[in-house]
């Protein structure tokens, strides 16, 4: 790498980090406002115009909370766990293409941090490493709720990772590549993959919600039963790190859904430029996340397992077979 390349990578990384942190902050507000509306109340609207400064206030409040380390915790792992969660969540975004190559300051700058041959597998790998954050937090906390939450999380993650991984195989068969840039280009030339892989899209979306531990699959936290699960013993900014990781993961899986199924940064017409199209699609999927949270009750653990292993996994397998037969017939 030349000096220019390194500067470019550092600038892009900083932009990704700042953008994801901003998305995290305003996603919390957006979610609370929509939930409020759906429950016939206003949601937070007092801090700043329309409540726009609420995330700042929340952040300041968390920063000035006492950091309590409970007795009997495994101190190195206790501190490592939130760090793992955040680092894997932020890194997964590296391979997502957010726009075409622009010319800025006379330098051709592709709008993605990295593009390599196994891009899609990189996102999956970061996802499976992210599970460590949760399991280790559960183990290190020396708390029964935390340990149960952590192990539940691990079991849930592995159950839905299979369906998630399989649902993407159909796309790979059509695109012939694991590079996300190539997948976006493939859709620009033909149809968006949601039109040819509708079943895969539904499976991906359900599994992705389960992978990010969001309602109705939020058994990992289950306030009423596990009092927060793996992060019961975390306070202040340490807790904020877990919260940050969860929301950033939501943004990443939404961005991945937009990239794989909804044409990525390409739009049906050229009104907006690349990154804005992607943002619009991400917001659309995030809205779906919030609406699901407001409308569906939490699943019971055996229901969760049954949905993953009895329904999504065989359906994803069926999708692969159908796609294979379809492509063979068309050729």
């Amino acid at each position, binding site marked *: 790498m030349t000096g220019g390349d390194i500067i470019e990578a550092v600038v892009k990384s900083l932009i990704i980090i700042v953008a994801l942190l901003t998305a995290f902050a305003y996603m919390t507000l957006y979610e609370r406002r929509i939930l409020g509306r759906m429950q016939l109340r206003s949601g937070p609207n007092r801090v700043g115009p329309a409540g726009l400064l609420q995330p700042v206030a929340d952040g300041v409040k968390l920063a000035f909370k006492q950091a309590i380390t409970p007795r009997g915790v*495994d101190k190195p*792992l206790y501190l490592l766990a939130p760090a793992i969660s955040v680092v894997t969540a932020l890194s997964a975004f590296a391979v997502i293409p957010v726009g075409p190559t622009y010319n800025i300051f006379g330098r051709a700058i592709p709008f993605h941090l990295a593009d*390599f*041959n*196994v891009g899609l*597998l*990189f996102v*999956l*790998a970061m996802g*499976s*490493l992210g*599970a*460590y954050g949760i*399991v*280790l937090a559960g*183990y290190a906390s020396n708390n029964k709720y935390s*340990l149960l939450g952590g*192990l539940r999380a*691990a079991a849930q993650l*592995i159950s839905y*990772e299979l369906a998630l991984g399989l649902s993407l195989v159909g796309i790979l068969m059509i695109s*012939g*590549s*694991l*590079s996300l840039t190539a997948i976006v280009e493939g859709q620009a030339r033909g149809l968006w993959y949601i039109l040819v892989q509708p079943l895969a899209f539904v499976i991906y979306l359900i599994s992705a919600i389960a992978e990010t531990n969001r309602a109705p699959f939020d058994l990992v936290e289950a306030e009423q039963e596990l009092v927060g699960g793996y992060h019961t013993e975390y306070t202040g900014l340490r807790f904020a790190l877990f919260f940050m990781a969860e929301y950033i993961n939501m943004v990443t899986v939404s961005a991945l859904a937009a990239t794989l199924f909804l044409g990525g940064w390409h739009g049906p017409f050229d009104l907006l430029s690349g990154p804005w199209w992607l943002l619009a699609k991400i917001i659309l999927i995030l809205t779906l996340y919030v609406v699901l949270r407001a409308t569906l009750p939490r699943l019971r653990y055996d229901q969760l397992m049954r949905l993953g292993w009895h329904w999504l996994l065989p359906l994803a397998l069926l999708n692969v077979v159908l796609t294979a037969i379809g492509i063979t017939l068309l050729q």
Partner: protein
Amino acid sequence: MFLFLLLAVVAVAASIAMITARNSIHSALFLVVDFFCLAVLYLTLNAEFLAAVQIVVYAGAIMVLFLFVITLLNPGNEETDDRLRGQRPLAVALGLALLVEVALLLRTQAIRDRLGDFPPATSFFEQVQTRINGTPTAPIGNVQAIGIELFTTYVLPFEVVSIVLLLAVIGAVVLAKRQLR
């Protein structure tokens, strides 16, 4: 070369830490560090797919299994007394003997001839490309190259793998089923 040395040192250090750690969860995590170093080593050998699989399967799936087994066996209450105390000097002696053997082997002509062309001038990846396209420049990726080899040259081993995996499913169910009742 620098990268290789760095990774090698970290990998060996993590392995030693894994063996000597008293806490089994810590051991498991040092193993993850080791897997990670291996993945990056694969990357330096241009084996992208293998590197990704190393992380997804080993660091992702096998380690989760380890963690579950450790919790199954009651973490934190391992026996701490050293039952193998008498074997320590023997282990060190045998380890050194193995090291000397490997060093001697590396000096034999037969091995050196083979090491001479490592890494090979044309990588596996380029070989497949050349065979498919006639020219090594046409764009085909690492995953594609593995796919082509696996599903044409090595079809039989691939199908045998599916039988092995089927047996693994049966084995897992049979082993755990007794305790489930």
